[in-house]
């Protein structure tokens, strides 16, 4: 048994592992970084920690989103540092059986770039579970420097 946090981007329902989730907060304007990748919105100061904020819609290839105060930034612990993911809305905390998770279909895609770890059906709706490591893999970021060492 494991717990997921489900959320929405457009009409799509997605999910991440709740244990990787550090915090959920409302969107606030970010500070853009020069020469950053297109899906990186900039950086955000979270109680002294500067973390990169990823436009998940753009990262998934579904087009840039236009964030508002009603958008939500999910702060995830990926590897040894936090990342912010911009999503449209957080849906729920769901408890699923790991056996129910199915692998995504391999359909002519580069396996290294497959961001979906698995697919599970919750209350009749198909939910894609994101592979957070791969999501942040292509995100070159400065070394995490604690502002208050």
């Amino acid at each position: 048994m494991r717990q997921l946090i489900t959320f929405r981007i457009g009409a799509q329902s997605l999910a991440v592992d709740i244990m990787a989730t550090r915090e959920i907060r409302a969107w606030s304007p970010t500070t853009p970084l020069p020469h950053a990748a297109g899906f990186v919105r900039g950086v955000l100061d979270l109680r002294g920690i500067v973390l990169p904020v990823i436009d998940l819609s753009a990262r998934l290839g579904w087009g840039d989103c236009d964030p508002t105060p009603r958008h939500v930034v999910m702060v995830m612990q990926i590897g040894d540092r936090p990342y912010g993911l911009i999503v449209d809305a957080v849906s729920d905390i769901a408890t699923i059986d790991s056996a129910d998770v199915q692998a995504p279909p391999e359909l002519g895609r580069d396996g290294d770039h497959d961001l979906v770890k698995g697919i599970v059906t919750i209350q009749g709706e198909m939910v894609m579970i994101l592979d957070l490591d791969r999501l942040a893999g292509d995100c070159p970021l400065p070394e995490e420097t604690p502002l208050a060492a």
Partner: protein
Amino acid sequence: MQPDQTNHGIESRVNFFDLDQANYDAFPAIARAVEKAAPAALDRFYRKVQETPEAAAFFSSTAMMNHAKAKQLDHWRGMFARRLDGDYFAKAEKIGHIHARIGLEPTWYIGGYALVLEQMIGSLLTGSPLSRLGGRQMSRVIGTLVKCAMIDMDIALSAYFRAADADRMAVIGQVGEAMDRLAQGDFSVELTGLPESFAKLVEDFNSMRERMRDTLLQVSETADGINTGATEISQAASDLSRRTEQQAASLEETAAAMDRITASVRETAEGAGHVYTSVGEAQTDATEGGRVVREAIEAMDGIERSAQEIAQIIGVIDGIAFQTNLLALNAGVEAARAGDAGKGFAVVANEVRALAQRSADAAKDIKGLIDSSSKQVESGVHLVGQTGQALERIVTKVAEIAALASEISASAETQAANMLQVNNAVADMDKMTQQNAAMVEQTTAAAHSLESEAEELTKLVHRFRLGQEKRQRQPARPVASPVAGTEAQGSRARPRRRVVGNLAVAADPAAQGDWSDF
């Protein structure tokens, strides 16, 4: 000449002239003297006649004169051939009648006797055997001759004067009859056949008759003209009367119609006044409506402002719900990390999330309702604005209507005043028409009177028979009886030629034939 009168005439004369037997005894001697002296004496006389134009005019030819001479000689012979009887008397009277007929004046007749007597007395006293008679016997012969000649002359002259008297009496009678017919109205009578000596009388009579007839004809024609004119006047007056009556009736109808129209116009004026008042009230109401609309618009604006404020508040609530939801999610995440120790906390966090979600849903519902309300308010504002514009247009139109109603009211008042004038005029016309009708009736009566007077005059004139001119005239009107009378009288009035035989002039051949009886 009745025989009785003849016998009486001869007997009384014989007695008065005292012709006795002694006289008759002298007849043979006288007869011889006649044979001896009379022819020469008659020759002498007729020579004298031929020498005297007035006397010669009685004879157309010498043969006629010789015939007369022979007849005269026979008369002398017959006078002394026997006793003086009725036959002789008739012959002597016939001579007088003939003389009267041919107009031979006694002068010539007595002159002839004088010549014959002169010759015969001369012959008796000188050349005849009788001259040998004694004076006593001679005087008886001559006396008898003279006595018989006087008797003969007396008979002839008496007859002559009687005949002349008869002629005069005939003329007087004819004139009297003509005058009588004139007096009876017959102007067709003519005096004809009178002797030459009465020519002037005939001319004067006929002239007088013609003048009077012409005058009466003119009077008749004038009367006919008057009659025709009077009839036409009467006809025209009747027509005028009828038309005047129609006019009076029309005027009455007109007056009634005018009264009704006037009443209608009055009603119109009052109606227009009411319309004016009502329109004024409507204008006030519409103005009031405009004010209400403006207030409604303001109220709508207030509602909209409140709705916006509510929407802002709802936004705040929604934001709180959003934040609460995030907080609950974080609590859930923390509870998950806590493992079994965090399960109770996770339940609470879930409850909070559910409440936050319900708040967000309620806020969303309210927001939808507010949006709907705002749209409806906006639509209401729009509609109320249109209502306000419509009311303003209504106010404008109502003001125009009020002005028009005012004008209508004023016009109707003016019309009513004018109608009153027309009514008065119609009443005057009615009065005049009544007077005209009365006048026309008087005219009709006068025309009828004139007509009857003219008819009376025509009747009076028709009593006179005026001859052919009158008959040929066609009367203007078919007045049956007078015309019939005129024609009847006219046919009777055809000039009758009165022939009086014993008044024939000397040139008449028939009269000349009578010399055979001389």
